[in-house]
């Protein structure tokens, strides 16, 4: 199982090498005077012209290179093969002209990138530097070319043709980088430097593969260690040694912390070692990775507490690893491209290694949920750490219900329910992000509907689960109690949601997604609406019995979804 993380890493690495993945995918025929293809995707044969074209017609080869021309058919396979060949030949041609011609003839176009404050961005407009100043200084001041200044509109051509150029060094630098990158997509250019020169044909997409892999290096040892933590916990559970521990005069918290501490410490050491080896900023790395470590451990703590057999743990841990890995790694790939990438803390690590700054808000946005989940799971852990619970063989939903029941402080149900809803928010949030990813399996035009319903189902479950457990255990029974608790639960949820909204809106303001998922623009109406839905679910449950809870949730969610549609203006 430990290996699965490795397997994921391997498949990830294989994926990173994208192009090499489809080894021998295409068959290419080349005329005797054609080029030599150096790309493992293509299996090449040298055939003369007439044989080549007839092979192409017979679909025996996908593309035929006839000297300087490339012939292909019009079916998908052949078209894709031609597309792949296009890229490969472009590369080879660049390498060839680089060798055959001087740099200034082979790479004649250099583009200098400058940045202007975005017109729509009112904040940065207000901050000061006016556009005209910027454009003037930028076009006017650079020492060398294009003396466009404020008064004369047309800039004279920069330089006598053959002389050395300022940008030549930038060109050769990029050629080196391009060659060094080999077949891997190469590390993107620094987008932060003030003056950056790009060569269109050497430009590559700004995907921070290298930095993501660095960030992934951090997570790998942590997930290994946490797997050891789980199996050690499981061993104690199965040997019933944990029962001995529990009868000793130590608190549950001490048991959990004591068991966890060595593993957490080891993870910390690995983070420190990696940071030192990579010469990163130690404090920043700690600030980013400690919450991640705590988060991973809180999930494994729950796995080992709830599950009883090794078989279950194996598969659940597999699931946990793949979910955590994708949750952390994939968004980070898009750092600097979409602000949503901040949902993974690894994005912060990527930023750190790129030497780019990020604000406190971004930090809170990506890290915030993790310590909360840790606190919640520690608390739940201490509550459910008793022999009966640990040793019980029961289906998962029963285990979860019991865990909730044990978590709730029955002497203060009102406060407990409010806080429970509040603390479930980070989990709801993460589940919704995962649903978003999963929803891509559904045909395109169903996605919004499915997402909307899924989001409301998750929300309704989060709000009503605690009350339902209390109903089931007969702690509460009157309709009045149900109503009051529903209101409190909705209140707790709303407060949490608003907090989340506050942080996330400031980070992903441009994203429609956050608006759709956490749609709420006023305070009172959502509060009333939320408590109505929850009350509906809970009353239905209390009337028709806990067995029909899924049905009640469904009804509540449908009503909720309709309400959301109304708020979004889909239903008039």
């Amino acid at each position, binding site marked *: *199982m*430990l*290996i*699965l993380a490795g397997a994921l890493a391997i498949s990830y690495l*294989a*994926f990173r090498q994208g*192009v090499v*993945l*489809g080894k021998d995918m295409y068959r290419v025929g080349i005329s005797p005077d054609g080029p030599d293809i150096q790309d493992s*995707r293509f299996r090449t044969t040298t055939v003369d012209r007439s044989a080549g074209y007839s092979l192409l017609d017979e679909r*025996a080869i996908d593309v035929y290179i006839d000297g300087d021309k490339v012939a292909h058919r019009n079916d*998908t*396979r052949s*078209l*894709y093969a031609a*597309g*792949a060949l296009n890229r490969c*030949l472009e590369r080879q*041609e660049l390498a060839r*002209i680089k060798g055959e*011609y001087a740099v200034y003839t082979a*790479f*004649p176009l*250099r*583009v*200098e*990138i400058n*940045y*202007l*404050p975005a*017109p729509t961005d009112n904040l*940065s407009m207000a901050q000061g530097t006016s*556009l005209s100043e910027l*454009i003037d200084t930028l076009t006017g001041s650079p020492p060398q070319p*294009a003396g*466009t200044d404020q008064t004369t509109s*047309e800039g004279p*051509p*920069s330089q006598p*043709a*053959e002389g050395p*150029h300022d*940008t030549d060094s930038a060109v050769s630098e990029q050629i080196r980088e391009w060659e060094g990158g080999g077949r891997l997509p190469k590390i993107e250019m620094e987008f932060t430097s003030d003056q950056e020169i790009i060569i269109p*044909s050497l430009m590559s997409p*700004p995907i921070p593969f290298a930095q993501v892999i660095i960030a992934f290096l951090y997570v790998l040892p942590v997930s290994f260690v946490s797997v050891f933590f789980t199996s050690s916990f499981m061993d104690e559970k199965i040997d019933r040694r944990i029962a001995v521990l529990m009868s000793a005069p130590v608190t549950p918290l001490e048991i959990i912390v004591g068991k966890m501490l060595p593993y957490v410490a080891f993870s910390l050491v690995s983070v420190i070692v990696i940071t030192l080896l990579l010469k990163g900023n130690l404090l920043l790395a700690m600030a980013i990775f400690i919450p991640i470590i705590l988060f991973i451990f809180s999930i494994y703590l729950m796995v080992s507490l709830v599950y009883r057999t*090794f078989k*279950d743990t194996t*598969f659940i841990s597999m*699931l946990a690893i*793949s979910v955590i890995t*994708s949750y952390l790694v*994939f968004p980070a*790939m898009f750092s600097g*491209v979409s602000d949503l990438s901040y949902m993974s803390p690894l994005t912060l690590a990527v930023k750190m290694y790129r030497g780019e700054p990020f604000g406190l808000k971004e930090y809170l946005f990506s890290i915030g949920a993790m310590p909360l989940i840790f606190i919640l799971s520690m608390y739940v852990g201490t509550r459910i750490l008793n022999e009966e619970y640990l040793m019980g063989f029961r289906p*998962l939903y029963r285990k979860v219900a019991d865990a909730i029941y044990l978590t709730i402080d029955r002497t203060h149900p009102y406060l407990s329910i409010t806080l429970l809803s509040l603390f479930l928010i980070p989990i709801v949030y993460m589940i919704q992000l*995962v649903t978003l*990813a*999963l929803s891509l*399996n559904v*045909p395109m035009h169903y996605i919004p509907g499915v997402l909307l319903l899924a989001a409301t189902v998750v929300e309704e479950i989060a709000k009503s689960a605690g009350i339902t457990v209390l109903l089931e255990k007969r702690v509460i029974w009157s309709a009045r109690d149900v109503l009051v608790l529903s209101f409190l639960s909705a209140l707790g949820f709303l407060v949490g949601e608003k907090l989340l909204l506050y942080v996330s809106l400031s980070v992903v303001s441009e994203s429609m997604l956050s608006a759709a998922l956490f749609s709420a623009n006023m305070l009172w109406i959502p509060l009333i609406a939320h408590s109505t839905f929850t009350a509906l679910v809970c009353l239905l449950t209390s009337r028709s019995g806990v067995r029909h809870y899924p049905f009640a949730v469904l009804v509540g969610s449908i009503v909720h979804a309709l309400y959301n549609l109304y708020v979004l203006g889909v239903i008039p």
Partner: protein
Amino acid sequence: MSAFYAIVKKELQSVTREKTIMIAIIIQLFIASFSSVILVGLMSFYDPDSIGLNARISIGVGVIGDAGSPLVGFLRDRNVRVTTFPSPQDAENAFSTGMIDAVVFTPDDSGSVVEMKLFLPESESLSTMILMILKEPMKRYENYLRRENGVHIRYTDIKGMPPTTYEFRYAFIIPVLMFFPAFVAGSMVIDSISEELENHTLETLWSAPLSLNTVFGAKIAAALALAVVQCALWSMLLRLNRITIQNLHLVLLLAAVIAAIVTVVSAFTSVYFKDRERSQFTYSLFTLISVGISYFFDFSPIMLLTRLATGDHYTGIADVAMYVVLLLALLGAFFYMAKRLIAAPG
């Protein structure tokens, strides 16, 4: 024979009861869908046109300097709205009102080197997108300048489609979906066999009028059946998503044969170690290493599957038959040796 089916049924029941198989399926679904998230993201950089995402976004670019530059034509070909401005001030005003998204300064290309200036909005995500859209016209301009300089550059006019999605689907997603069930099946067989060995329940089964090989055969068959069902499900899901697999019957046959090979190997492992954890570990390590090594061989199952699924002309039943032979050999060896391995101390 009815005893054989009874064991198969028992195995399948235990699997569905424990819901492990559900989790395994969820994992696969998860990997597949997160991969497609990534894919869509990557596509928007490599091939903005192919997903039609950026193609629909129309950007406006203001040009100052040489309005007759060929770049203007190349930009228009790429559906970029081009406006020429006589002075930076005008361009700047247009930019600040949001009429244009970026400003390009092109000097007259009288020399061999053109030093262009590109002004992008400061927002990182916006500037990246604009840059990706402008990349292709700029490359065409660059090639134009090269020709002006007497540099002969070939193959600049190949049509065809950007292959990223195609390669990713057929060389990664489909092999993962087709072979992951095999991995799960192997895991299941180990769990099932080592459980019986550890609890010494195998002896009871075995002393009944069943041979040891029937018991193992049934366990392998149950795991295999599940793997095949999963593969068939995935192929249906792929078809729903309009991804066609060529040679579907051969692809499924290959997946089944590989799953069978993996389960037999895992049965070997569990009988040899007689200990769940050690077997699982060895098995996972073995799978990982074989996947790694197979990469270097032409006939590796993954590449074979890719070629079958894309409809390679020269790949067919003969290549699959090779694995059938391997499977039969392994199966024979296992049935021959299982009893002896069981008897040997763990």
